[in-house]
């Protein structure tokens, strides 16, 4: 929609075209760029997607909308379209009353979940007392702004993040991790817009390294990407709620992930330093071992690749590396699109988790983190012309 807006602002009348299942997304984007009453024409998704493979096949879809498209350029703006008034929003506290605490919490949840201010699970009430308690987990000022959150560039203050952390059931001592992750996500050099809104069902991986991981009991062992640990789960949930409420993102409106974003509490985990043969990840990035760090990366949706072991076959370290290379090589065709500078925002990157026994075996064979990174970077390469 931003490209459409640029041309309209240059004085050119236009029509934005999308499938009908994307109309809410287009309307939301039109609001974001400052032209909420843009001319939008939709084509029926159920016809478009099945017929778009050939010129002849898609022609009925084009015929169905051509008159509407032409009218969109010709018909004068209505008074409503020509209006430049904007609606104002009240962000003040809400008061909920009921006959008992249980009913008040139920009523609060009804309001917040109906307003799309939650993740679908029961929320804890962010009373002023609870938020003040959460803010004890950081020495930073509640008014401090750490950035803006896509897609609507909502302002992320320490207090707003704390409100969402309360709703998530996080502990005050988790705040440093939550804030560090929010700083990463809102970094202007990080493309949070794409991760949060793309049809590709991406998600965030949030790795905690350094002493704080153990202090907060963030799971780094068996099941580290799964359920069961309050720190992993509620840090992730606090971040999810913060992104929903600060970025104003919602499935089917402006989060267009087709199958959703698996793991609604993201993937929060710690590096397993107890068994790792290598220095902590953050040390490789120039930090001291005693530092605590948070690393945020975008990852694809959940899928499973069997690289060896279990009921499949015995494995050797080299076989695992070979399987990894095969897996990484296959999607590299997308690089060609990226090189042309269009739809794909960048080349695929990978986070590899090595099970401790495999990591120790690779270490014995002379590998370290850097040599493995180079090997796994070089081996899936193939000539551009292919």
């Amino acid at each position, binding site marked *: 929609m931003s490209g459409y807006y640029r041309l309209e602002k240059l004085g050119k009348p*236009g029509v*934005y075209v*999308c499938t009908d299942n994307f109309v809410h997304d287009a309307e939301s984007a039109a609001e974001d760029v400052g032209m909420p009453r843009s001319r939008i024409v939709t084509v029926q998704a159920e016809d478009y997607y099945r017929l778009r493979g050939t010129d002849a096949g898609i022609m009925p879809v084009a015929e169905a909308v051509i008159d509407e498209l032409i009218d969109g350029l010709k018909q004068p703006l209505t008074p409503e379209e020509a209006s430049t008034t904007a609606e104002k929003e009240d962000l003040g506290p809400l008061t909920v009353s009921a006959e008992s605490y249980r009913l008040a919490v139920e009523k609060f949840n009804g309001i*917040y979940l109906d307003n799309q201010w939650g993740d679908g699970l029961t929320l804890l009430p962010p*009373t002023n007392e609870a938020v003040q308690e959460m803010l004890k987990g950081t020495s930073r000022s509640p008014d401090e702004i750490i950035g803006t959150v896509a897609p609507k560039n909502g302002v992320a203050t320490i207090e707003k993040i704390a*409100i969402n952390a309360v709703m998530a059931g996080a502990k005050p001592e988790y705040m440093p991790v939550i804030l560090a992750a929010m700083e990463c996500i809102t970094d202007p050099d990080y493309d949070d817009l794409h991760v949060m809104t793309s049809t590709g069902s991406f998600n965030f991986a949030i790795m905690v390294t350094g002493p704080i991981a153990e202090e907060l009991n963030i799971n780094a062992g068996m099941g580290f990407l799964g359920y069961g640990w309050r720190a992993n789960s509620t840090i992730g949930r606090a971040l999810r709620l913060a992104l929903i409420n600060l970025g104003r993102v919602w499935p089917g409106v402006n989060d267009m992930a087709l199958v959703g974003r698996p793991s609604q509490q993201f993937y929060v985990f710690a590096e397993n330093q107890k068994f790792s043969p290598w220095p902590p990840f953050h040390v490789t990035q120039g930090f001291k071992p005693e530092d605590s760090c948070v690393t945020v990366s975008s990852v694809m949706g959940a899928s499973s690749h069997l690289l060896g072991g279990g009921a499949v076959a015995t494995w050797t370290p080299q076989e695992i590396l070979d399987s990894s290379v095969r897996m990484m090589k296959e999607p590299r065709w997308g690089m060609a699109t990226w090189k042309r500078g269009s*739809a794909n925002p960048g080349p695929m990157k990978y986070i590899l988790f090595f099970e401790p026994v495999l990591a120790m075996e690779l270490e014995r064979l002379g590998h370290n983190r850097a040599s493995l990174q180079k090997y796994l970077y070089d081996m899936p390469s193939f000539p551009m012309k292919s």
Partner: protein
Amino acid sequence: MKKFCIWAFAATAAVIFTIGCRSSNDVTLEVLNPRGEITLPPVSAPSARIADLAGKKIGLYWNEKPGGIHFWNGIEQLLKEKLPGTTVLRYSGAFDLGEEFAAKIAAETDAFFYGVGD
């Protein structure tokens, strides 16, 4: 006795009234708003339309994904049929065409259709 009855009745009514009031508003929660402040840009209206497109140049912008190429081929063909004398110019690039490319398209066209997606 009559006075006592009136007093007793009034006292009972007051107690019932108080209990009734308490039971309807026993717990009040003031909860903070979790939403972040957003600063939307000033609202602009779309550009004025063109009543007669005869002889005009119409740009078709697509973000180059393979799925839309055939659709836009169809639109181009139909525009030429329905608006003889109209020139159709095809453009492709990123989701957001950027300032420089926008200026180029604006200089070369009178109106446009814009689509991104698959």
